[in-house]
């Protein structure tokens, strides 16, 4: 009960914020929420399931493009287009995951990089269906039950998307599935000996997080009412990687903090250094990897432990020797 109250409070507060912002701020806010959503999914895939995959933005694009193509090219009603897009994203994710999860680490990274590049090529060469390099524009969200959802109301849709993604991944992380994902990452041999089907676990984690990215893409399609290949390129998946590493890999809170920080940083930095914020990101990344591999969440943990162990005798007791009791 208390937990569901918290979710409701977050929903109300984050939604209320949308109504207090102007249209430009709403646009920034929406994209921030989408980045958080993507970072949460990527954190599960990369940080928890330990799969070094670079296809997350491709699925974001796949979701966006497929829903737009559904309503414009095929003229489907919105619910049909959404459902078809979800099915399509899941099918593509399975098609990538089933061969790719045989591969580990470096090879999975290469396979998904190739997929991400192929996706961009297909978008550029897709002719009338994908709109080529210019992408698709001049469409809008169809009315839902006679209502036109726009402005802050559409921001609420994104708030719901972000919170649902968080809730789903939060629950999975704290379940047998989350433990199986971590076990398969930490030690696949021991995981298999404990009855975890390592390959299946990896396929499910990949497909699930890719489908969530696709869902976010479907929502994104009606934010700018235009989709084009440059948005879904590799540059952004690396930004996503920076977000979860700087925030603290494997931690949902880290993904949120990292996404907020790296998305808003250019707004602060660009008056000072123009478009060179990528340099700052790169530098921060190097420093984090070298000195704080657990990211900002690691700093937070260290601070919390220190303030706890101020009281004598309450600090963590180091375990030594075998207990004889």
């Amino acid at each position, binding site marked *: 009960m208390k937990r569901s109250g918290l979710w409701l409070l977050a929903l109300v507060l984050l939604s209320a914020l949308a109504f207090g912002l102007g249209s430009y701020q709403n646009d920034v806010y929406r994209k921030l929420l989408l980045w958080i959503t993507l970072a949460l999914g990527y954190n599960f895939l990369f940080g928890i399931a330990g799969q070094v995959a670079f296809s997350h933005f491709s699925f974001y694009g796949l979701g966006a493009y497929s829903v737009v193509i559904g309503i414009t090219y095929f003229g489907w009603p919105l619910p049909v287009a959404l459902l078809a897009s979800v099915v399509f994203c899941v099918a593509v994710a399975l098609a990538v995951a089933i061969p790719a999860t045989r591969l580990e680490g470096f090879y999975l990274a290469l396979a998904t990089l190739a997929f991400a590049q192929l996706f961009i090529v297909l978008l550029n060469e897709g002719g009338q269906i994908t709109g080529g390099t210019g992408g698709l524009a001049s469409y809008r969200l169809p009315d839902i039950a006679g209502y036109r959802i726009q402005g802050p109301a559409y921001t609420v849709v994104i708030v719901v998307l972000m919170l649902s993604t968080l*809730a*789903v991944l939060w*629950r*999975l992380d*704290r*379940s*047998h*599935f989350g*433990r*199986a994902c*971590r*076990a398969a*990452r*930490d*030690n696949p*041999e*021991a*995981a*298999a*000996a*404990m*009855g*975890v*089907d*390592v390959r299946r676990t990896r396929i*499910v984690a990949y497909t699930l997080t890719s489908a969530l990215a696709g869902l976010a893409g479907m929502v994104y399609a009606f934010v700018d009412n235009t989709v084009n290949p440059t948005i879904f390129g590799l540059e952004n998946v690396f930004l996503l990687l920076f977000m979860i590493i700087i925030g603290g890999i*494997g931690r949902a809170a880290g993904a949120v903090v990292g996404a907020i920080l790296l998305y808003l940083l250019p707004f602060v930095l660009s008056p000072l250094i123009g478009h060179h914020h990528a340099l700052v990101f790169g530098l921060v990344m190097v420093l984090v990897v070298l000195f704080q591999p657990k990211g900002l969440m690691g700093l937070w943990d260290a601070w919390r432990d220190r303030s706890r162990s101020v009281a004598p005798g309450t600090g*963590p007791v*180091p*375990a*030594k*020797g*075998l*207990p*004889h*009791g």
Partner: protein
Amino acid sequence: MAEAPALLQVRRLTRRFGGLVAVSGLDMSVYPGEILGLIGPNGAGKSTSFAMMAGAIEPSAGEIFFEGQSLSGLPTHAFAARGIVRTFQHNKPFDSMSIEENVMVGMHTHVPVSMWQVVLGTAQAKAHEKQAREQARHWIDFVGLGEYAHADVQTLSFGQGRLLEIARGLAAKPKLMLFDEPAAGLTAAECLRLADIIRGIAAQGIAVLLIEHDMPFLMALAQRVVVLNFGEKIAEGTPTQVQADPAVVAAYLGQVKVDHA
């Protein structure tokens, strides 16, 4: 012992690595609730036999039956689901998790709820999670790691890590537990404690098979011993019988006695 049907039955088990025959035509059985030692000099094929019984590698020929059913062609993870669980000689904990979570992974094959129930946060999913935690606590207490339940795995000593492997295995509710040199790397006091734990496991009706280099440890613990040499079984019997067997003495025990002199 022989009146009960065998839990695990190994028939003509053979494993070749290229031209090398590591295990050749091995026949042996493990019965419920017994402690069986599998011994042999280095290169005798005990680790290879162990790996086949644990489902880590596939036999080149021969078959393994568990509760009368063939295990041929099953993937490693299916062995745990059938009730065969192993420990590792070099501890293989899940480093990013607490002791409690490590043990909870052991319950993976007994999870009664689906991912969808977890996502929807159903009452069953919550009840299972709570119950899993309680069961994990039970096994953590059983091996004597109670005070470390929420600690990180990295804070454990090597001996404690071995106990964690056992708790994690027990959480899988095994019918047969395979121990890969459980005494290796432990202090004398830790070995005594380990022997007690293994006897406690067998007392619950779980069959125990161990491969071990520490002869005094094994001979005091095992009720029955199978001896391998050059991939073939050369003797089988009680610890007293095999220690008196001339073939065994020649192949192995004599050498060990010299080592310990």
